[in-house]
């Protein structure tokens, strides 16, 4: 380059307002939305309600963390809801010690304990994720198709496994994971936040995390750089499976019940959370922080509109519009930065 100073130096001293807004656009949008709700319905800001929102968000939020890994590689996973249902039923069956006492209520269940149940849910999730990752990388079938197939297969498996019905009634140690609190904070919220922090660290600071971005940014380049692209892609579906299993366990604990129809439609909510948080569906760009904000945004919307007693039909219209506005705001903020 030229020997004279590069033209590419910003005046670093001045506060970069546009840069700031661009970076935190989803968060800013979330805060504005919360402010509006708080004005219209002051109870929205009560700590109990805020914890409600977070607890409500925690299950789809866990899934959204896994989905962030998947979408960073330009993939997608439509099977999360179904896999969650299947994993939840398996966990429930383990917790109940089989299928015979499906509807026993209360503490005296004879099963194998929450530890094994949790392990079972996660094992099912990992296996489901691995099978799909394998099909994607080995048979080179697009993730959309494989996981659409998985969505159908896992739902069928869940229905078959439970003969269509729910499995309910776990012991206190199990349900604590969904209903308990540590201090004022619900357990699912803690699980969600811990998972988010770990995922954030993995994506930002580990070799594996950086490679996920590299594969998503330019898979051919990643291959030529000697990355094990197949392995990395497969592993993000395994990670997604892990979170589906974990989410299944927490959901079963929260509802004290596992159903074959659980998680129906979650795929879109979860993908929406990730995308609202600024992750590109074309891979290579996005953060866990954004995903957490995106999840909260959807949770706040659902909760706030119910609190304000908006008719459910109109709620759907408002939610649709606000999701688009949130992303439009993000895009606008980012384009301001780019164009200057």
């Amino acid at each position: 380059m030229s020997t004279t100073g590069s033209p590419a130096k910003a005046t670093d001293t001045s506060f970069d307002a546009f840069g700031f807004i661009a970076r935190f656009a989803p968060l800013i949008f979330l805060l504005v939305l919360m402010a509006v709700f708080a004005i219209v319905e002051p109870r929205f800001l009560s700590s109990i309600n805020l914890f409600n929102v977070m607890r409500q968000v925690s299950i789809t939020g866990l899934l959204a963390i896994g989905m962030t890994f998947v979408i960073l590689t330009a993939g997608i996973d439509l099977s999360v809801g179904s896999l969650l249902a299947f994993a939840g039923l398996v966990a429930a069956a383990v917790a109940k010690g089989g299928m015979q006492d499906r509807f026993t209520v209360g503490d005296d269940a004879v099963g194998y304990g929450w530890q094994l149940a949790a392990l079972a849910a996660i094992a099912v999730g990992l296996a489901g994720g691995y099978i799909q990752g394998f099909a994607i990388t080995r048979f080179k079938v697009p993730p959309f198709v494989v996981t659409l197939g998985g969505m159908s297969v896992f739902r069928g498996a869940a229905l078959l496994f439970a003969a269509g019905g729910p499995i309910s009634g776990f012991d206190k140690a199990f349900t604590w994971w969904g209903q308990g609190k540590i201090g004022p904070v619900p357990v699912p919220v803690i699980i969600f936040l811990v998972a988010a922090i770990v995922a954030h660290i993995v994506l930002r600071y580990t070799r594996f995390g950086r490679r996920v971005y590299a594969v998503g940014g330019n898979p051919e380049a990643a291959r030529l750089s000697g990355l094990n692209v197949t392995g990395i892609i497969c592993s993000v579906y395994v990670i997604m499976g892990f979170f589906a299993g974990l989410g299944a366990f927490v959901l079963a604990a929260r509802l004290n019940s596992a159903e074959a129809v659980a998680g129906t439609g979650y795929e879109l909510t979860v993908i929406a959370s990730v995308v609202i948080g600024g992750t590109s569906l074309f891979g290579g760009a996005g953060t866990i922080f954004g995903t957490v904000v995106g999840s909260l945004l959807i949770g706040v919307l659902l909760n706030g509109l119910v609190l304000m007693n908006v008719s459910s039909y109109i709620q759907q219209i408002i939610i649709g519009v606000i999701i688009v506005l949130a992303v439009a705001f993000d895009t606008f903020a980012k384009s301001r930065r780019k164009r200057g």
Partner: protein
Amino acid sequence: ADKILASVPGLSFPFFVHMMNAFKAEITAQGYEAVESDGQVSSPKQTADIEAAIAQGVKGIVISPNEVDAMAPALQQAVEAGIPVVTVDRRVPSVEGILAHIGADNVKGGEAQGNLVKQMFPDGATIVNLQGQSGASPAIDRNKGLHNVLDGDAKYKIVFEQTAGFARDKGLAVTEAALSGLAEPPKVIVAANDDMALGAMEAVKARNLSGIAIIGFDALPEALAQVRDGGLTATIEQFPGKQSALGVQTLTAFLKDGTKPAEKVILLTPVAVTKDNLNIAERLGEVK
């Protein structure tokens, strides 16, 4: 006015829209403000709505749970928060301290369908069974009721059984396939809701078949109109409006002066509505 939460499993189903309207009308009539909650066929969503309502300080809850087991923890929470709860249509036996339940059991409804089949075809019949959405509790219960009645009797053969997802287009498509796949047309088509029955009716019409009895479920106005005009044979009336009003009355009576209901569980018997007893149908007035 004090607020009462009215929650139903899903406002995309006309059945629950009717129930919600009945809730709201009665809540207003009793001098309270209704808070509407649409479970969107999701237990976690309905749970979150209940939690939001508790946080908001509603005085009472009247609810038709999306899934009885899965909704138990949320209702338990409400009861523990000192909020009286009345369940309608689907009972949650595992929660102690629910003020009352007013319902018409879905299993009983399925049995009513079966009994009608037996009554219409004493010499036996072949039956096509259109089940509701896989895994959904009303689908399971209604199916169970039908089988309770028909399974023991060899004269009644369910020759074809498939889910049509509570949807009219699927009801039509599955019936078409059934009619193609069966060597001879069935005597009866039983559907787990009116939508599927109406879809089946179109399929039967398209084939120009006559003499197939079609039995729906829910007694929606459209189905009642068809029962009147001969398109459908029958539908099952569960009196959702009456259930709902009664539920709200029980709740408000308790809220106003602590009156506890005489009976904790009030069950209305589902009735098969045919041309002959059309006037017992609750929503006949909506049919023009």
